[in-house]
């Protein structure tokens, strides 16, 4: 059996680790368009902040490829699939045949068309290690940095460069920061926190034109900058599958076995769209845990097992200037809400199940809420009032605790 994996990040690692549980002999070829040992992309902001370094950023140790007997091909870009011959064709003309193929190509920054953008010399994106290094090189003391996009990428970038004595402005179309994961009130808390940390925010505005090193906003404001970071969002890299006639939407469409519509071709990670079980809608959920688990699921099925990953939900853990935010699921239904001005908690529930939550500040034991969403735990089986206030195992039945903490199989328990 010959496995080919296009991509060299979390989904690829998940696949390799799963394949090697079942198939010690088959060939695994990993192809990356970058030139690095597998590293954790979300850590690039921590790299600029000085909280990690290139060595510690390695997502798996130096022996990973050797121990898992992977052939690693770096600096190589896949151009197209020949699904009849079961081959991947590369930009340099090489071809690699496969028995089972995994597309784990991730996503790419989306650069919106803005008048005059082509004249901006110092423009950067912020999703790869090379991006981070290039941005770092472009910064000098007192640089004025304009970040377009106040989402996860833009704000982590702002935090990453905040210790470098630079002036940071951040602009977003939305009236909220972190609009993809926060409600209005949660966003207000983070907005104030960012402003307290000297990030200048320009919300509900957009850039109509760039004039050399000045961004002209729709309300007439002019923001001068030395360095521009485009962080409005990312787009899944779907072209390999799309051009080969596979089903795609915003992302590559996969089933719960992480199979695409093309035989023997699987896909996992940020390039995919899959079922969000908290909303029942297919979505691109570009999150590292989902990427790993989709990759793992694909690897299991590629190596001959029958394995389903049907527990994907949107979820995020992010820290900004010392404030932690954990969110998961879908924000619909009835609301439980508490705040003391510093900490903020909102739970969303309906039809006897938890749909989603937002925690800011005190995030301890958040995973207990995540599990309720993921497992669709009927809320009438636990002390809901208690668990709203205090996430803990106390809210579960004694029998459930016996299973969780005592290793007791449910039929053996007399409650």
């Amino acid at each position: 059996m010959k496995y080919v994996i296009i991509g060299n990040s979390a989904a690829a690692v998940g696949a390799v680790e799963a394949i090697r549980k079942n198939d010690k002999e088959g060939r695994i070829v990993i192809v990356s368009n970058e030139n690095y040992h597998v590293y954790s992309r979300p850590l690039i902001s921590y790299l600029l902040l000085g909280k990690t370094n290139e060595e510690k950023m390695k997502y798996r140790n130096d022996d990973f490829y050797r121990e898992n007997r992977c052939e690693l091909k770096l600096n190589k870009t896949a151009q197209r699939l020949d699904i009849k011959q079961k081959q991947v064709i590369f930009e340099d003309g090489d071809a690699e045949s496969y028995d089972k193929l995994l597309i784990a190509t991730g996503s790419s920054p989306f650069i919106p068309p803005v008048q005059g953008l082509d004249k901006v010399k110092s423009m950067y994106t912020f999703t790869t290690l090379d991006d981070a290094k290039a941005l770092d090189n472009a910064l000098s003391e007192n640089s004025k940095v304009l970040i377009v996009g106040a989402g996860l990428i833009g704000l982590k970038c702002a935090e990453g460069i905040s210790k470098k004595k630079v002036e940071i402005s951040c602009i977003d179309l939305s009236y909220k920061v972190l609009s993809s994961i926060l409600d209005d009130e949660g966003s207000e808390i983070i907005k104030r926190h960012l402003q307290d940390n000297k990030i200048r925010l320009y919300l509900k505005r957009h850039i109509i034109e760039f004039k050399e090193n000045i961004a002209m906003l729709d309300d007439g404001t002019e923001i001068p900058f030395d360095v521009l970071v485009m962080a409005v969002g990312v787009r899944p890299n779907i072209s390999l599958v799309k051009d080969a006639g596979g089903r795609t939407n915003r992302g590559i469409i996969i089933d719960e076995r992480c199979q695409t519509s093309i035989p023997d071709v699987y896909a996992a990670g940020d390039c995919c769209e899959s079922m969000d079980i908290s909303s029942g809608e297919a979505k691109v959920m570009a999150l590292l845990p989902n990427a790993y688990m989709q990759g793992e699921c694909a690897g299991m099925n590629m190596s001959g097992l029958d394995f389903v990953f049907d527990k994907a939900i949107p979820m995020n853990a992010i820290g900004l200037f010392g404030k932690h935010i954990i969110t998961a699921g879908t924000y619909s239904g009835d609301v439980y809400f508490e705040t003391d001005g510093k900490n903020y908690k909102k739970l969303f529930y309906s039809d006897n199940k938890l749909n989603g939550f937002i925690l800011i500040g005190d995030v301890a034991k958040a995973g207990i809420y995540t599990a309720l969403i993921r497992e669709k735990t009927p809320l009438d089986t636990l002390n809901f009032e208690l668990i709203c206030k205090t996430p803990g195992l106390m809210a579960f039945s004694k029998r459930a605790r016996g299973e969780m903490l005592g290793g007791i199989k449910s039929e053996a328990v007399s409650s």
Partner: protein
Amino acid sequence: MKRVYVNENWCLGCHLCEYYCAFASTNEKDMARALKGIKISPRIRVEEMDGISFAVSCRHCNEPLCVKGCITGALTRVDGIIMIDKDKCISCYTCVLCCPYGAVSPSEDGAVLKCELCIKTYSRTPMCVKGCPNEAIVFEERGE
């Protein structure tokens, strides 16, 4: 493999497990001296309410969501034990988001806190187990 199991019927709610846990990570010889005047950050925590109490620590899951979700690779499963590389951890709390038991704790010390069954300490038996006065916490093989 051997795991820490908890029997809430026998838990006294004395919190000694928390103190023994905190003591274990100091690698000191004298518990009173090691813990005097410090705020402890144990990897096992007692939940208590209305006369019910029990200790919660890492279950060392066979399919660990914290390890699968870890964005840095700091959490790994080695011979069944979920270990943390404190040097790699950047306290993003993705594991706090993922753990269904609330058994990975946030910490301001640069790395999250979790039970490693005392294998990095001198103790062969986890210290919470050794210190429990009523055998409400045991370390044994139960075929999981």
